[in-house]
């Protein structure tokens, strides 16, 4: 049946038809929908894990038990799960195991632009890389068999463009795959030195076998254009851009398995062309491999290691090379210069009241990963740092250890509920154990927000929306060794300020839970929009300091957009003249 699917849905469908039994993941753009689509199938076990390491180890356990299993994550999530990955390479698997990892060239929604192919090379596991949804479906479906045949976890690399682009896919039916028997195999699965020493040579032998596979497999394909002098080795979405520009007029070697890379296939291809190029987004992985084969090739000297490519990138590079390009697009004209439109926190976002309080009191704020990272933008400019999941909590401890009382009184860490579950708890233990008087604010909006509303262990619901055990954050923080734990409503500016100033003043570690659910949650009913009383408004612009997108300034007065305002009332608390109201009762 032919359907229009985004890459991530195609992956999910391929994994489902390939016999998946369990998926465990942590959400992360652009990987999230793989697991969301899998969760729609009731005949497999699906779950959101607290972080990627737990997810991968859960998938490992299922594989050990004989079931085909999957975990999915974004590129930086693989950093978190790198520990199990490297040793899973040694143990191998029982039920086929696929690790989906989605890179984000151009950083549409990420803090760095790392290239996950390095992990495949370093961990010595095979990696597949589709170019569109149709291949994503086919590669995902085949990955379990590859995994079981070679006794290895398989990495499936997506990138933002492929994960979030739709194309027509011919989807088949699910194959029933029985679970394998569980057999105790100490020398395969207990990785202590004596056994691990026995496994390493097996890994090296496996790589040799996979190299042989790379020479002749469904993933790598050669398209020879008779009479063309140009040969291009490419992979992922770069293949699509090459075909968009050149059609069938140049020879192409398309790499669908970036690790391990073939040797003979590349040598044969290079021998057939006069001028060889490698076009790959991010790092020169294929290019360096070609160079180690002693073959002359042009790659990163022409195509950047930064950001995403497009057909325009390819056209411009080859024009520079003096290659004739047909159908060069002609634009109607240049776009006029217009103000930027950066993303921002929503109208009524519960994070805003807490951020306003911190900015008003000139607090140094170590931030974390989530919607609340948007507190960094104007006019709040609230954040001092954002590094990775959990780094606010561990980071403030180091910051205060370095600067002591000077900063303890005016520095906080902010972290969301889901991020705290992911990586914040261990940092909080460190604050208590190694004793800095640090103040951590958990911005608890009762959901994993930025990735599009996934449940987490604090929300009381599982991935299916069924009731689940909910972590009690107050009790948890106390159990981790923090005696001072208090809860405030971020819509109440006075309460926020009292809590922040008191907790910063005390000579012990403390946690403030700033608690109010995300306004975009379906069960949160917006209040009536607020209005500005034009007679009372003095045009002082104080209400605009918190950066609410509902409030604008026209003809010397504040205005509230009634299609955006959800009536949170934070702005009315800022107005000294009582000019904002109108939704009481």
């Amino acid at each position, binding site marked *: 049946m*032919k*359907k*229009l699917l*985004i890459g991530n849905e195609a992956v999910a469908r391929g994994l489902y038809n390939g016999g998946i039994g369990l998926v465990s993941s942590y959400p992360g*753009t*652009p990987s*999230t*929908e793989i697991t969301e689509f899998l969760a729609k199938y009731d005949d497999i076990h699906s779950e959101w894990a607290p972080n990627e390491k737990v997810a991968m180890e859960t998938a490992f356990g299922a594989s050990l038990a004989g079931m085909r299993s999957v975990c999915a994550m974004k590129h930086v999530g693989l950093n978190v799960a790198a520990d199990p990955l490297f040793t899973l390479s040694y143990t191998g698997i029982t039920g086929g195991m696929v690790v989906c990892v989605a890179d984000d060239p151009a950083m*549409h*929604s990420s803090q760095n632009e790392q290239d996950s192919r390095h992990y495949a090379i370093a961990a010595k596991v095979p990696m597949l890389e589709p170019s*569109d949804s149709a291949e994503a479906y086919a590669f995902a479906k085949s990955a379990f068999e590859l995994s079981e045949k070679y006794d290895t976890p398989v990495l499936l690399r997506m990138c933002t*463009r492929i994960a*979030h*682009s*739709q*194309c*027509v896919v011919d989807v088949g039916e699910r194959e029933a795959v029985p679970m394998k028997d569980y057999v105790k195999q100490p020398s395969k699965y207990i990785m202590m030195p004596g056994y691990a020493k026995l496994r390493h040579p097996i890994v090296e032998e496996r790589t040799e076998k996979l190299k042989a596979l790379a020479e002749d497999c469904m993933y790598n394909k050669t398209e020879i254009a008779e009479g063309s002098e140009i040969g291009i080795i490419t992979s992922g*979405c770069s293949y*699509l*851009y090459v*075909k*968009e520009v050149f059609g069938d007029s140049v020879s192409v070697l398309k790499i669908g398995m970036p690790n391990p890379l073939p040797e003979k296939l590349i040598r044969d291809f290079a021998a057939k062309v006069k001028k060889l190029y490698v076009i790959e987004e991010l790092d020169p992985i294929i290019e360096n491999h070609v160079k180690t084969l002693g073959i002359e090739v042009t790659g990163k000297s022409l195509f950047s290691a930064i950001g995403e490519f*497009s*057909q*325009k990138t390819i056209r411009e590079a080859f024009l520079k090379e003096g290659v004739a390009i047909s159908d060069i*697009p*002609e*634009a*109607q*004209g*240049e*776009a*006029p210069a*217009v*103000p*930027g*439109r*950066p*993303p*921002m*926190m*929503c109208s009524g976002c519960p994070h805003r009241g807490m951020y306003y309080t911190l900015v008003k009191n000139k607090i140094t704020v170590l931030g974390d990963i989530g*919607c609340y990272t*948007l507190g960094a*933008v*104007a*006019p709040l400019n609230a954040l001092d740092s954002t590094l990775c999941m959990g780094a606010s909590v561990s980071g403030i401890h180091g910051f205060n250890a370095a600067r002591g009382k000077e900063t303890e009184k005016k520095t906080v860490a902010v972290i969301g509920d889901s991020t705290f579950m992911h990586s914040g708890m261990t940092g909080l233990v460190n604050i208590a154990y190694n004793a800095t008087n640090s103040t951590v604010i958990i911005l608890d909006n009762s959901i994993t927000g*930025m*990735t*599009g509303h996934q449940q987490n262990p604090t929300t009381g619901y599982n991935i299916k929306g069924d009731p689940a055990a909910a972590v009690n954050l107050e009790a948890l923080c106390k159990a981790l060794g923090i005696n001072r734990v208090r809860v405030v409503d971020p819509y109440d500016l006075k309460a926020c300020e009292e809590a922040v100033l008191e907790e910063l003043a005390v000579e012990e570690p403390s946690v403030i839970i700033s608690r109010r659910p995300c306004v975009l949650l379906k069960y949160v009913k917006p209040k009536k929009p607020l209005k500005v009383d034009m007679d009372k408004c003095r045009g002082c*612009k104080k209400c*605009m300091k918190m*950066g609410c*997108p509902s*409030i*604008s*300034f026209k003809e010397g007065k504040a205005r509230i957009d009634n*299609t955006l305002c959800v009536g949170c009332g934070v702005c009315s608390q800022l107005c000294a003249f009582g000019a904002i109201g109108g939704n009481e009762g």
Partner: protein
Amino acid sequence: MKTTSVMIVGVGGQGSLLASRLLGTLLTDEGYDVKVSEVHGMSQRGGSVVTYVRYGEKVYSPIVTEGECDYIISFEKLEAARYAGCLRKGGKIIVNTQEIDPMPVITGAAEYPANVLAELKSKGFDVDDFDALTPAMEAGSAKSVNIVLMGHFAKHTEIPKEKWLKALAKVVKPQFLDMNLKAFDLGYKG
């Protein structure tokens, strides 16, 4: 046949994903090769968003670059101008005249360009501007602006209206179908 390229642009939260799903479903049903490229994640939070839809006999790239776009469908005035450089010579811009202030305007760091559509027209851009918000309200919700606009765009395509309506029924939830059919109709007439 030549590949046709459409861009659907607007502000995160305006419903461009549903609009692209409608167009993608329709074109697939019509038997075209189709590619749609969306934006998920951070930029959706009130930021500028763009979705590419390309169709034809065989489509490779899912994205649209400078001078390649046949139709820009913009949910907001400023956003039409932002992406105007992508329009090919002879292409068309369909734009909702709604204004949504971006944060630099809210903070006073920039001004909303008052005559931005007139500027485009004076540069020779073919601009079909109309108010999609009023008909959306008439249909029942400001949120149906996306379908009003797609109804307006439908007039510019060779695909018959009833096929659009069939695709619409496939992509919206049954309880919102009547509202969206009305929104589509008002856009088509507008």
